[in-house]
């Protein structure tokens, strides 16, 4: 029994490390997109620059939503470890709503840009912008799908140790996306309007 427990512990720490290495490679992916954006930022091809396009208070609300969701998913992981099933699902629902609001706001921003003729086809700057911010949004959307799966599994099967481990990995993923967004908020939006 004791060796079984030890084996389970080792497996989960191997999985955490594996997932951590995936996150680090994803960091490198985002770094290439940031580098592309930094290089192409000035290439507006006669189109609007970042200063004319970005609505800072709107993006600040997005940032606030994502930051709060990073906190609430941490609470979900802690509740799951402590064995509170309904509290875990409650925190996950809150996180899901915050994440969904974030994606909705981002897509609304994209829709406005495209409707004004400022799509990714307008200039090198906008291509790089949509690629960088869109890749982050795609990650968030995948995280939301993962969250739905976790909510269903926990609601049906309870807090099995395997699901608690997976929820911890989802938490890791979500915190990582929050960190990437802080970089986007600072480099793309804050520095973009200066």
């Amino acid at each position: 029994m004791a060796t079984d427990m030890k084996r389970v512990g080792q497996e989960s720490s191997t999985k955490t490390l594996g997932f951590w290495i995936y996150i680090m490679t994803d960091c490198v992916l985002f770094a290439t997109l940031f580098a592309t954006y930094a290089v192409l930022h000035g290439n507006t091809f006669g189109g609007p620059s970042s200063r004319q396009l970005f609505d800072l208070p709107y993006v600040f609300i997005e940032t606030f939503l994502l930051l709060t969701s990073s906190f609430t998913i941490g609470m979900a992981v802690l509740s799951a470890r402590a064995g509170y099933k309904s509290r875990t699902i409650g925190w996950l629902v809150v996180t899901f709503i915050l994440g969904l609001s974030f994606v909705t706001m981002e897509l609304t921003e994209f829709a406005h840009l495209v409707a004004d003729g400022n799509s990714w086809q307008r200039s090198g700057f906008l291509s790089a912008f949509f690629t960088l911010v869109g890749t982050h949004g795609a990650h968030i959307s995948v995280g939301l799908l993962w969250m739905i799966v976790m909510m269903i599994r926990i609601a049906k099967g309870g807090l099995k140790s395997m699901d608690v481990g997976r929820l911890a990995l989802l938490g890791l993923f979500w915190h990582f996306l929050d960190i990437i967004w802080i970089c986007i908020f600072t480099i793309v939006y804050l520095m973009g309007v200066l």
Partner: protein
Amino acid sequence: MSSAVRSYSIGFIVSIVLTAVAFLMVEHHALPTMGLIVTIVGLAVIQLAIQLIFFLHIGSGSGARWKIATFFLAFIVICIVVGGSIWIMNNLNYSMLRYTPQEQNQYLHDHEGI
């Protein structure tokens, strides 16, 4: 309140404050542009460190040493990719400044075969 909850709460509150400060400073243009850039990048770096420690728990738990090792490897790659790209492309822009776009195309065609 358990220590884990406290850790998340500290990370959350500090992150919100740092983000709000950066946002308000830019919104009201509180400093000259160069000073603002340095300040908001500094605030972002502090916030990244805070989140790595309080949300991602980088230095604790089993396998912490391997997590830190892979983190530094990724960090080095990121510095090379981002720094190198900006450096090279700025140099290229600088070297090409004296030509019009047509002359640039002609130059690339004649000298580089592009």
